[in-house]
């Protein structure tokens, strides 16, 4: 994926900031993951996951880290035909 990690981290943290303010923390984490799944190109999600794995989530907010760890399976790209 072409986007650099800095951009993805910034975007993820912005999204995380919105969902972190929602009343139900558990639901908010799931909604965060759903937002990325429904709005982000899978390559962007994959690149963010790669960043998470490579750096233990450097630069990501605590909420984003928790949400990604809790709902990692939603962020992985679906298998697709070549």
């Amino acid at each position, binding site marked *: 994926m*072409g986007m650099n990690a800095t951009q993805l981290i910034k975007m993820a943290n912005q999204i995380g900031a919105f969902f972190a303010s929602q009343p139900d923390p558990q639901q908010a984490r799931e909604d965060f993951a759903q937002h990325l799944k429904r*709005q982000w190109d899978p390559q962007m999600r994959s690149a963010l996951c790669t960043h998470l794995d490579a750096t233990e989530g450097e630069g990501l907010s605590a909420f984003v880290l928790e949400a990604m760890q809790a709902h990692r399976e939603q962020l992985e*790209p679906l298998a697709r035909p070549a």
Partner: protein
Amino acid sequence: MALFRELDYGTPARTGAPVTVEIDGTPITVPAGTSVMRAAQEAGISVPKLCASDSLEPFGSCRLCTVEIEGRRGYPASCTTPVEAGMKVRTQSPKLAELRRGTMELYISDHPLDCLTCSANGNCELQDMAGVVGLREVRYDPVKTHLAETKDESNPYFTFDPAKCIVCNRCVRACEEVQGTFALTISGRGFDSQVSAGQNEDFLDSECVSCGACVQACPTATLMEKTLIEQGQAERSVTTTCAYCGVGCSFKAEIKGNEVVRMVPNKNGHANHGHACVKGRFAWGYATHPDRIAAPMIRESIHDAWRTVSWDEAIAYTAKRFKDIQAQYGRDSVGGLTSSRCTNEEAYLVQKLVRAAFGNNNVDTCARVCHSPTGYGLKVTLGESAGTQDFDSVLAADVVLVIGANPTDGHPVFGSQLKRRLREGAKLIVADPRGIDLVRSPHVKAEHHLQLRPGSNVALLNSLAHVIVTEGLVDEAFVAERCEAEAFEQWRGFVADPRHSPEAMEELTGVPAASVRAAARLYATGGNAAIYYGLGVTEHSQGSSTVMAIANLAMATGNIGRAGVGVNPLRGQNNVQGSCDMGSFPHELPGYRHVSDPQARAQFEQSWGVSLLDEPGLRIPNMLAAAHAGTFKGIYIQGEDPAQSDPDTQHVTDALKAMECVVVQDLFLNETAKFAHVFLPGASFLEKNGTFTNAERRISPVRKVMPALAGKEDWEVTVALSNALGYPMNYTHPSQIMDEIASLTPTFTGVSYAKLDRLGSIQWPCNDAAPEGTPIMHEDAFVRGKGRFMVTEFIPTEERTSRKRPLILTTGRILSQYNVGAQTRRTANGAWHAEDRLEIHPVDAEDRGINDGDWVSINSRAGETAMRATITERVQPGIVYTTFHHPESGANVITTDNSDWATNCPEYKVTAVQISKVEAPSQWQNEFQAFTHEQLDLLPQIKVVQL
């Protein structure tokens, strides 16, 4: 083919109880309040008239429409006399004929008798009436006349010839009643009475906004379009839809051969009711501007000369480039942009090409950079990505909250309608960092101007909500019946927190708490309350949160689901709503159905005969970022200009340079086309068939007025490209495309060209439940079922002022120019706005030694440009403002990569800058000039085919 001349009933229609009268022996039943003149016309009887028009309230000055009424003395004016039950009227008698001839004789005694050479010849009401009343002689030989008065030709589009004026007041009344500008008046008394613009100024120098309502209202050649003076009367007319803003005015294009003589707003247009603005009515000359490129062009590199080629060669070349790129870099290495300036059918085809022929979901549209947060925020809260009302709804509003919008500039015809309602007594709240015209203009004054700091929308809306919740102003019954209870209670608790009180927020928003409290009370308790908003809401890092906060306010006060209320996004371009409806976003198929929805996808797969991806594709900023990284290599851009319109210009142009195949389909060599490898000439709205969908979800027909300059309408080009890419498209007319859209999109099921022809326009949803469309949404239930309140925490933008950059730049638009200016800059509208300027408060200017008109540098963390300063108190201290209509201004060189958290809509409205006086353009501007010269030199010598 439209009716060339429309019947004028003399006075407006009324809506009272039925009343039956007898006119010339013919009984006619009309609503109470109807004038005798109108009742007569409805009975098929024309009463002579000059000062009356059914677009204006009756005035009774010309004395030509006198009638006799049984049992009454004298000869009352039929235009100002309302019908009464049992009234018996005579419109013709020897005495009436004598009176009318006498009146006409007086008029003609001070009117030039140059009918044969007059521009109104063949379309002059004075001439017609002279014939109708049988005027045969003029006995007077006045010693004093107006015949030597000087003609005012200052306005680029129309002339004012006082020698031909009969002082009927129609122009003055049109300026007041229809447009609401009050620029015209009758100055002087008696013989000296004359129409005057402003304080006896030229039209161009006056407050006149050139809407043309006066020209349209004029019964003689006093106010006349210059095009008509030059070309003569038209031969036929075609009803079509304006291609400028999101109001979507209906027009009758009056034509002679293949040339437009003038554009006349359609009296039966449901969005505009016969009104127009300076752009729609007059600024259409770009369609035949010499800069139009009329043949396809290709080149290997952006530093090569363009080579003019045939359509076949251009299409084959383009398809091969895209195929080669996908073969080398993968399926996802290409994408496309649909256009909010093109038709629904064209947007639909481009997204179809991307999904079916490219085989990915890398499609986006310029709504990304304007109203994408509207789609997101309204879908989450109300269940549908669109405004809730029709424009006419404002006529039932008692309170109007305008936030982040400037309707009199951006959506002028709606602005006039709004001002009319305000003059009738509706209250206005304006939330805007600038003093827009609506805050105070003739006969309009906002009750409250909440002059907030850019970037504090959510804080302000939360504090408005705080007042509503803590002062017991919630419509509890509405909320209990219509909204999700748990989400409401969470929201109620959230906004009730004292940290959201106006007092707590005052320092942050800059708005006095007392004003916020008063505005909240007015909105919640003032009757029908409607919210209108624009890009000042969406183009922020919290754009989507702001849209949700607006929906929260409307739901909490029960101001949704009926006339006079609602949530109304004022869409920027003519077909922003439509391009979004047509599946232009990378995550949504037409009708806003997510690509992961298996049922929706199966429908399209079956219809299109391909497998579709179930994951979102790249948005515009993602495509640009991927291009920087070397993984995105080709793009098909129809009718958009991201190199000028998108933020952080250098980032955009570097991304375009990094691509191997940039294909631009446009009218002109726009800024993006300077980085293109293929140029496919586009067709203007006058050269194509299709539909546009305006801000009120109104689908309106676009009908071909003249042949496509380059031989193809835009949809035909997409069809050819798709076929060359190996995915067959076999449409022969856009109506077939609409039929396909209707078959696949639940909200369009009942839409067809035949129905559009019958109804004139249709507001979606249009289906079995609403066969003729839906003016007002969410009447009985929200589209999502229960309305969903969302907690909208204020999260400040990361763009902060500092000692180095202490001012906030915010951007917007102006009445006479449109978006990137590619169209309006190629018209005479430059008379009003020849350059972008920086508005700066006198205090900030003085601190920097800046005088009005000085060149100033604007420096942000993204870049630097220079423009001239205008010193004005319209902006607050600490805030500067500019427009982005001229590419050399480089307004978007300064704007940053910040964007809305949910949709990546750029944060155009908040950029930290420093301003300083300079003597020379910025480095970027020098480079821009050099690159522009290089690119113009690379154009073929003969590029234009004159119509």
